[in-house]
């Protein structure tokens, strides 16, 4: 019975992922070959692609997408490992996680805006310098950041956003009971063989950790290559990345430009595929190099530089986050704030009042949507993962399934959402809430799956074997053994799902036709406006909301554990009261 339920869920999830994306994808493929009845285009041809490849600067756009995508992912992965190597042994690591969490939960658009607040020619950093040199007029022409021609600003913002995510993935892998033991074992072996701390991490522990977080890293890579918000806010526009061009064409007043946008979306898919292949090649190269180093048997591995770099990564983050928090909070309360003063002339609640007077409905909409999507995603994903254990699918089917997971991350949102909205309109014009829920699920499920699958697949199966051999049913094993041991991972995935749902702008706007405003749709609308101060308020709101999700995720496992312990040790409650 339970087994059948899990298999059914797997099928459901498969359809849930495949249907919207493939329908949306069809909505892109047809127009890209010139078929678009709404605009009276009925003939198939390659003309649109010819037009696309004749676009001025297309090569540069593709190059920028690849450079910022691959570059940022490589750099972020490296930074994460340096960070981990530098402090995996200390209890400091948990504090690092908490420290980075503001950036983990801040939506991409808000991150880019926060960076502008700090690093733009009139930002906090320029104010610091300006107050030393007593400049009163900030000059944009002398500045490098943002809008540089090379995409470095975009790359930096992406790195900033990716490191916390990869770190979270790595930590959740390292925190699994089976891994904790294994990694501790590696460490002991390393130390007893005379490897020092850092080389033990890089040579013995990392290969095992990396294998488990590889999938999320590839998802990050795809996302970074096709991200729209960050290049839109930080890239020079002569031209920008391919994704911003796609958005531009889809939003163009001349609706026939949609055809070009559709063709460019197809190109974007190929760009992403190329990025993955390139990344895998690098991965192979590094693995080969690493194996040689391992055979060489040196016990030392850039000990000093790793410690230094790891700490510097941390220091950069600490400084940036402190500056972001300071400047955003200040702006949200500021009256006039002339350059280069470090403090506003006065404080006011006006901006908060303006924003909060209109936030009630969007707030509850966002919470309801996020709770429904994230919670149901976690349930679906858990059952699906269980079905892989209880009733493994044929290899081909399994492969198809993991491909369907990546589809929503591979096809740029603007493109396939348009096709999806068209299809949803055909089905029903009333079920806006349901349409929006589906559009969110398409994005939430893959992330929940990726973050949960890792822990789930590495679950020590011998626990289950023991329980089964003692006569427990599959459901009992799932319920009493697996879930309790995976509470941490489940909660983190749930919070991640909430955060992903909170940050969705285009899916919400397109699928609901604007009838379901959320904090993010309000925030993006305010960003397109002219008030620096209102934007700051919205950036804070956008950060606080997903943060609440993570607070729940961090405290819930402890509470559940506490409740469980109390149940088991009712008699020892007195001890607990005086304990730590």
């Amino acid at each position, binding site marked *: 019975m339970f087994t059948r339920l899990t298999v059914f869920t797997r099928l459901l999830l498969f359809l849930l992922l495949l249907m919207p994306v493939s329908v949306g994808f069809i909505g892109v493929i047809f127009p890209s070959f010139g078929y678009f009845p709404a605009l009276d285009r009925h003939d198939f041809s390659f003309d649109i692609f010819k037009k696309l490849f004749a676009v001025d600067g297309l090569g540069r756009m593709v190059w920028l997408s690849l450079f910022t995508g691959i570059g940022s992912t490589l750099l972020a992965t490296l930074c994460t490992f340096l960070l981990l190597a530098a402090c995996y042994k200390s209890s400091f690591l948990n504090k690092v996680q908490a420290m980075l969490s503001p950036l983990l939960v801040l939506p991409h658009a808000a991150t880019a805006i926060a960076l502008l607040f700090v690093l733009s020619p009139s930002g906090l950093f320029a104010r610091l310098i300006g107050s030393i040199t007593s400049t009163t007029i900030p000059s944009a022409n002398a500045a490098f950041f943002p809008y540089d021609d090379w995409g470095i600003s975009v790359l930096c913002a992406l790195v900033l956003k990716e490191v916390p995510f990869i770190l979270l993935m790595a930590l959740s892998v390292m925190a699994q009971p089976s891994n904790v033991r294994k990694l501790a074992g590696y460490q002991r072996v390393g130390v007893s063989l005379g490897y020092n701390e850092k080389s033990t991490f890089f040579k013995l522990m990392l290969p095992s950790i990396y294998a488990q977080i590889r999938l999320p890293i590839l998802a990050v890579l795809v996302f970074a290559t096709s991200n729209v918000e960050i290049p839109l806010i930080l890239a020079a*526009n*002569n031209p920008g990345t391919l994704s911003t061009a796609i958005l531009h064409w889809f939003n163009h007043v001349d609706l026939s430009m949609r055809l070009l946008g559709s063709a460019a979306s197809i190109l974007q898919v190929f760009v992403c595929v190329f990025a993955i292949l390139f990344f895998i090649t690098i991965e192979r190269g590094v693995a080969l190099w690493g194996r040689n180093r391992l055979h060489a048997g040196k016990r030392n591995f850039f000990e000093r530089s790793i410690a230094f770099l790891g700490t510097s990564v941390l220091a950069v983050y600490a400084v940036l986050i402190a500056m972001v928090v300071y400047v955003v909070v200040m702006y949200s309360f500021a009256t006039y704030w002339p350059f280069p003063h470090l403090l506003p002339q006065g404080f006011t609640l006006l901006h908060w009042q*303006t924003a909060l007077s209109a936030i009630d409905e969007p707030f509850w909409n966002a919470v309801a949507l996020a709770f429904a999507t994230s919670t149901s995603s976690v349930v679906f994903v858990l059952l699906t993962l269980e079905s892989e254990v209880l009733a493994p699918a044929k290899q081909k089917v399994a492969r198809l399934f993991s491909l369907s997971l990546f589809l929503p991350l591979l096809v740029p949102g603007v493109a396939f959402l348009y096709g999806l909205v068209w299809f949803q*309109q055909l089905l*029903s*014009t009333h079920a806006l809430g349901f349409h929006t829920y589906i559009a969110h699920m398409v994005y939430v499920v893959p992330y929940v799956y990726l973050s949960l699958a890792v822990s789930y697949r590495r679950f020590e199966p011998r626990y289950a074997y023991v329980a089964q051999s003692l006569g427990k049913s599959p459901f009992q094993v799932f319920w009493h053994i697996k879930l309790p041991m995976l509470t941490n991972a489940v909660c983190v995935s749930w919070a991640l799902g909430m955060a992903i749902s909170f940050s969705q702008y285009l899916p919400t706007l397109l699928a609901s036709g604007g009838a379901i405003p959320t904090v993010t749709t309000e925030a993006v609308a305010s960003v397109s406006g002219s008030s620096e101060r209102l934007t700051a308020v919205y950036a804070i709101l956008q950060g606080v909301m997903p943060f609440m999700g993570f607070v729940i995720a961090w405290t819930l496992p402890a509470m559940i554990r506490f*409740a469980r312990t109390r*149940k088991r040790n009712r008699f020892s409650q007195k001890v607990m009261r005086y304990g730590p």
Partner: protein
Amino acid sequence: MLSRTLLLFICVVLCCVSVHAAQPSNQNASPQKKANESDMPAQHVRFHAWGGSAQVNGYIRWLSEQLKQRHNITLQHVKLADTSDAVARVLAEKAAGNVEEGSVDLIWINGENFATMKKHGLLAAKWVGQLPNFALTNPDDNPAMTMDFGEATMGMEAPWGRASMVFYMRQSHLQKLQVNAPTNIQQLLSFSQQAPGRFTYPAPNDYLGASFLKYALLSLNPKQHTLFYQPVTPQALDDTLPSLWQFLDALHPNMWREGRTVVRQASQLQRLVGTGELSLAFTFTAAEIPSAVERFDLPTDIRTYAMDDGSLANVHFIGLTFNSPNRQAAIKVVNFMLSAEAQAEKQKISVWGDDTVLDMRMLTGKQQRLFKEPALHPSALDKTLPISLLAEPHASWTDALRNAWYERYGARY
């Protein structure tokens, strides 16, 4: 305990999922059901309008409160970051064969979005004439009320407000840099040469960017104005563009970030003036400047003025979609928007400050008094000074100009 907690958790989840799946359809069906059942129907009108300005949003909130009281109509402001999102949605609905149950009722548009919607038949026609208050705009004497960028409105959209392009500057910056505020197009060039990096204009895909190009083109070719009010021809472009290119070639290297990148949206101009990265900018909504100063978004040394060689002027409109299910209520809404009371509220500097489209000669003395403004804000445009207005060129010029710009200076995505 644990299993019970988790069981509860799962139950909540499943309830949520099913409720969530069931709820929206009920929610959406209910207003219409009610409409058939009771005599005084609670009607719902969805107004898709750019939501980036606190003043405009506040005014639309006022509108919906008034409409709720007077006509029991709920006006929902769907805030857009980009109006073309809504245009795209209506198009998607048309593509899907949805001709009665559209999700957009009213839409705030003008110029190109209107031309697009008109071309694809996305707007209801001939409803504007039914509005009792439309007569107050005196359309017979004011052709601007029925022409949108040289394109006849054919009763598809009703005028809502009026705007002209004015400049604003940071007085303290100009004093420190020892330059005077430019008052015509040639002075603008010399200003940028004396104070490099202090001025820029948005990319031409933004309406304000395109407007700047039109202003420059009109001002640089004062003798050829008749050409601009006819559909564009290659000959007309050959005659007028060289002077524009000469001007822009000289301007760009002295702009913000040496013209290598330009802002994407008009609103970013105001933001950059606010932070001090720019000292001179321009806008179509002069009244937003003093209210932005009041809200601390712009500093107090801002001064607004109009160029001597003319200000580009245009009207913005409200369109009704072809598939709006709430047509009658929507028409009531627009009629109220055109009432003297609503227009006077909109023109207040403290509210929005958008110029009225009503013709004062058509109003009663009592109605006219609604439009009286108290003392002038130091940062506001002095409307007692004469402004020479430049009418918008024919709509076909916008695309021609934009494409020519892209061809010369490269596309900006």
